[in-house]
């Protein structure tokens, strides 16, 4: 069944500072869409708008989960997550003083995720054997790469339909960035997820993206309807490839 997000004409601000202006964006069922933009352009803020952490001052955000349409604006974060939308937040936000396993089990707090807890945990451990080895270690004492794996795995434990990932590559070595991006792709295929990913690392993100948007100063500056279109865009050449 279909899972999609439709954002239309969204504005958002922190106090008097306008951060998002008239953003219209959609993610179709089964797609991987990448949201590109350098520091401070409003990627995380847009993610927060979808998750109900920041309330948009105007515009609409709808999500279709298993064919049912929901208005996300005005709902609490808990309700939105409960619908089946998971966010891997910026900075990972693990529970540092809980063990790896406890972090994962917390991911399955959602009532509908509890039923599949055994299956999902098994899958997480087979996908990231490292986490299985370290299941008793405190999350706060793991390396950056391991923490990113854990953050992804924890989001999966939610058994989401739509997965939002905010800058998975931050603070990782190039080889790890590559691996993380690949695992997102693998998870997506395995669980038939719909993915929206915010990234700065263009060349890695484009490897798994079906399409993408470029956000500059809170506005959508360019929409690439395919990976090729993104590759050949002037703006991207200017910002990311230094050409």
């Amino acid at each position: 069944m279909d899972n999609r997000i439709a954002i239309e004409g969204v504005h958002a601000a922190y106090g008097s500072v306008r951060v998002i202006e008239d953003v219209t964006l959609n993610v179709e069922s089964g797609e991987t869409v990448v949201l590109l933009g350098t520091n401070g352009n409003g990627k995380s803020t847009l993610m927060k708008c979808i998750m109900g952490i920041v309330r948009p001052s105007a515009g609409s955000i709808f999500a279709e989960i298993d064919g049912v349409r929901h208005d996300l604006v005005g709902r609490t974060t808990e309700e939105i997550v409960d619908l089946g939308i998971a966010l891997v937040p910026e900075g990972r936000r693990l529970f540092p003083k809980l063990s790896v396993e406890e972090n994962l089990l917390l991911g399955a707090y959602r009532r509908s995720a509890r039923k599949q807890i055994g299956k999902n945990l098994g899958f997480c451990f087979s996908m990231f054997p490292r986490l299985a080895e370290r299941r008793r270690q405190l999350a706060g004492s793991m390396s950056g790469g391991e923490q990113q794996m854990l953050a992804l795995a924890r989001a999966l434990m939610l058994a989401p339909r739509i997965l939002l990932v905010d800058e998975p590559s931050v603070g990782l070595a190039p080889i790890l960035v590559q691996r993380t991006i690949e695992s997102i792709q693998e998870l997506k295929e395995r669980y038939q997820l719909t993915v929206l990913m915010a990234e700065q690392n263009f060349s890695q993100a484009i490897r798994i993206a079906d399409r993408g948007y470029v956000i500059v100063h809170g506005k959508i500056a360019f929409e690439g309807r395919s990976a090729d279109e993104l590759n050949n865009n002037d703006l991207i050449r200017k910002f990311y490839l230094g050409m």
Partner: protein
Amino acid sequence: MNFPVELFINSMIAGLLLGGFYAAVTSGISISFGILDIVNIAHPAFIILGSYIAYILNTRFGFDPVLVSIVMLPVFYWLGAAVYQVYYLSFEQRGQEALRGLAFFFGLLFVTEVGLILVFGVDYRYVQAPYIGPSIRLAGFDLPLRMLVPFLLSLLLFAVLQLILTRSFIGRAIMAVSQDPLALRLMAADPIRIKRAAFGLSIATAALAGALLIVIQPVEPSVGREYIGRVFAICVLGGLGSLPGTLIAAMLLGVVESLTSTFYGPSWAPAVAFGLLLLTLAFRPSGILGR
């Protein structure tokens, strides 16, 4: 001079039994202060309230004090949840918990104590139960049931709490809530609800601890204040948020206090806990098993 071995061992046993009971008294604080980071100095007042409820129903109807406390668990849970709601709305939400929130709990502590004095006076009250009085002899040493029963019930309480906190979904959420409330919301859990439940749980333990208290010793309203220092000392010494640490620290304090009052006289015992607390704060604030 001859070292009084028998006296020493008896005192050790008494200390361990007492320590077990201290653990029950501290378990609530271990949740509210240790895990949730809410400095509920009114906790002992709830314990004394538990004692008096056990006392009333025991003298009036002859109900067993422990049984009464188990029936009272939901009531105390509800009471705790309501207190947290007030605390959250009036202080936590506005970032005023450090000054006004603390004063609020202090006021509650005070009002409860004085209210009990007004209704019941300052006389010591006690309960009657079959296990108050007799002792069993084990390997030549006396184990008074009055101490042994609370000790065993405390261990049971600890086991149950530890199970709830580590094995249930809500328990794990309680452990996580003070670390990162926003991340918890991203797991579809409402941090306020979790905290309310946890605070309710912590006050619920006071019902049982109160009944055990009045089984162990006669109670008057200001007894609670002696326990403020003890519970915080144990909680800090054990390591904030660690139930096993709390249990160890409670036993330790029980033994040290018991030895102190055996060898130096009971009037020194109250200072032991506080002295230990000051020393812990000064030299090892993370406690024995702090994470």
